[in-house]
């Protein structure tokens, strides 16, 4: 697909120019990506095959797959794997469902819609550390407003320490991530909804479709590419996201909220086993990549995209 007809150049040899101009345009981005992502990434991957020690960097040697063996033999790795699965699957699916409903709501006309649209995005744009702190304060076991309200409406009898009980800690973090992530889905899907030509909906209505049928047979198929790309991005971001665990629970109680990135971080920076930490992070990235390839394959086969 030839996208460019010959540029009408006057000063420069047109063939040279056709190569030079895009190269110059791509240069700043390419340079940044290679230097800040490419080079450190290669370095990190090499580290997974070495026994790098922060305190004695000169003693680094090649150890083959020893780090991988060590990581797979660590029971915490498997706990973290399970927690990550629960964390990613429930957070992303809840966000998708509520974000979709939200997009449909925001696509209606109502008083003050522009302000509401702007204001509802705020949780998404709030620094995650602040989100963590806000919710820690609200969920406080002694002075938290959430407990107070739940007791007042009679759901709870006494205050409950949501973040320090093994069974509620991870679900609570999931709820907070959902709270923060709904606006992202809502705004992406709202954008896609608005791109659907009105004529399509009108045509379907003339043919006798009710609103639910229009939604399911006209809108949802057109939204699928956006749903796909948004879900993939959110899947990746959620899997790699550990700020909440870092600030709120420290991976605990026990290992109840230790997810893969948190496990990798603790290995690398608290236990100063950088190589095993990098290995765990690398394994996680590979698995995530695999999940996404499978996801795209399945959708391709069903001719969704």
């Amino acid at each position, binding site marked *: 697909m030839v*996208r*460019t*007809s010959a540029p009408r150049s006057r000063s420069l040899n047109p063939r040279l120019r056709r190569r030079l*101009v*895009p190269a110059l*345009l*791509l240069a*700043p981005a390419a340079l*940044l*990506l290679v*230097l*800040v*992502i490419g*080079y*450190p*990434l290669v370095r990190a991957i090499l580290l997974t095959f070495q026994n790098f020690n922060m305190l004695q960097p000169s003693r680094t040697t090649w150890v083959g797959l020893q780090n991988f063996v060590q990581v797979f033999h660590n029971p915490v790795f498997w706990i973290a794997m399970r927690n990550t699965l629960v964390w990613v699957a429930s957070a992303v699916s809840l966000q998708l469902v509520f974000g979709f409903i939200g997009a449909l*709501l925001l696509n*209606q*006309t*109502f008083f003050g819609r522009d302000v*509401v*649209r*702007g*204001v*509802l*995005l*705020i949780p998404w*744009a709030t*620094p995650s*550390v*602040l989100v963590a*702190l806000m919710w*820690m*304060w609200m969920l406080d076991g*002694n*002075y*938290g*407003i959430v407990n107070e309200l739940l007791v007042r409406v009679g759901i709870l009898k006494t205050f409950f320490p949501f973040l320090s009980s093994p069974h509620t800690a991870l679900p609570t973090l999931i709820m907070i991530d959902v*709270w923060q992530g709904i606006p992202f889905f809502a*705004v992406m899907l*709202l*954008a896609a909804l*608005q791109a659907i030509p009105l004529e399509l909906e009108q045509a379907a*209505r003339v043919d006798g479709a009710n609103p639910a049928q229009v939604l399911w047979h006209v809108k949802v198929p057109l939204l699928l590419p*956006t749903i796909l*790309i948004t879900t*993939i*991005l959110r899947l*990746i971001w959620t899997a*790699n996201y*550990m700020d909440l665990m*870092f*600030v709120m629970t420290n991976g605990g109680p026990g290992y109840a909220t230790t997810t893969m*990135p948190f496990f*990798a*971080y603790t290995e690398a920076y608290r236990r100063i086993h950088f190589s095993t930490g*990098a290995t765990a*992070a*690398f394994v996680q*990235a590979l698995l995530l990549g695999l999940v996404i390839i499978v996801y795209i394959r399945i959708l391709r086969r069903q001719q969704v995209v």
Partner: protein
Amino acid sequence: MTGASQRSTGLGRTRPRPRFRWRWGRAGLAVAILGWLTFALGPYVWMFLTSLKPKSELYTSPVQVLPHSVTFLGYKLLFTTTPFLRYFLNSAIVSAGTVALATVAAVLAAYALSRFRIPGKTYILIGLLVTQLIPSVLMVMPLFLTLRTIGLLNTWWGLILVDTAFALPFTTYLLTGFMDAVPKQLDEAAMIDGCNEITAFRWVLAPLLVPGIAASSTYVFIYSWNEFVYALTFTSTTVSRTLPVGLRTFIGEYLIRWDLLTAGGVISVIPTILFFMLVQRNLIAGLTAGAVKG
């Protein structure tokens, strides 16, 4: 506003819609929107109320909802006894620098990808998305070593470069989709009229890209304003410590300063609110063209 205008298309003829159903629909919509607003904004309201309470009212049981006596002591202590303003300034500089750098680099790259014949364009775009897979945990250590070597630890520039590089792939992807949506014939016509690639971009494409740039720079702003893991690792002094890292320092070993934290929280949310009010309309329009390409 009644919202009745939506129904004036005359399509109701095929299915007569009783009025009461429409009314229930409106009421349901209102309840849903109000419920969502409460859920989304409740935490901020609670933070604001807490920041106005004197210390004696912070720790009461049962929990006291509204402050009896309003105080601004938390804010005063925040500005006079902590380097909060410095954190705020650092965050503002890092975010502004990142938005500027990432937007320029991404617009240039997107222009090349959208308007020139680039070998392997599809693979470049997929590659951009693949960079998102990289866990920051994996990159922190090698980046730390690199930044230390070139002397950019504890500097604004160090954080700006890192944030820019990690925000760039998605921004470029978004803007390429957005530019692909602008008909090629427009810049071709401009070139026939004597423009070259650069002037055609400046006078024809750029004005049409404003919503797309609004959307992508919002993403960059949010990314760098919120970024935590890199900022935590690459800044060890007040000189370049950003807001998220700074706020965390108010959590002591035994004691959490909720008075300072809530006051600081309220102030850190204000720029975000203003920013969103400004770009809201362009943001949705920008995502419309950029995101749908999928």
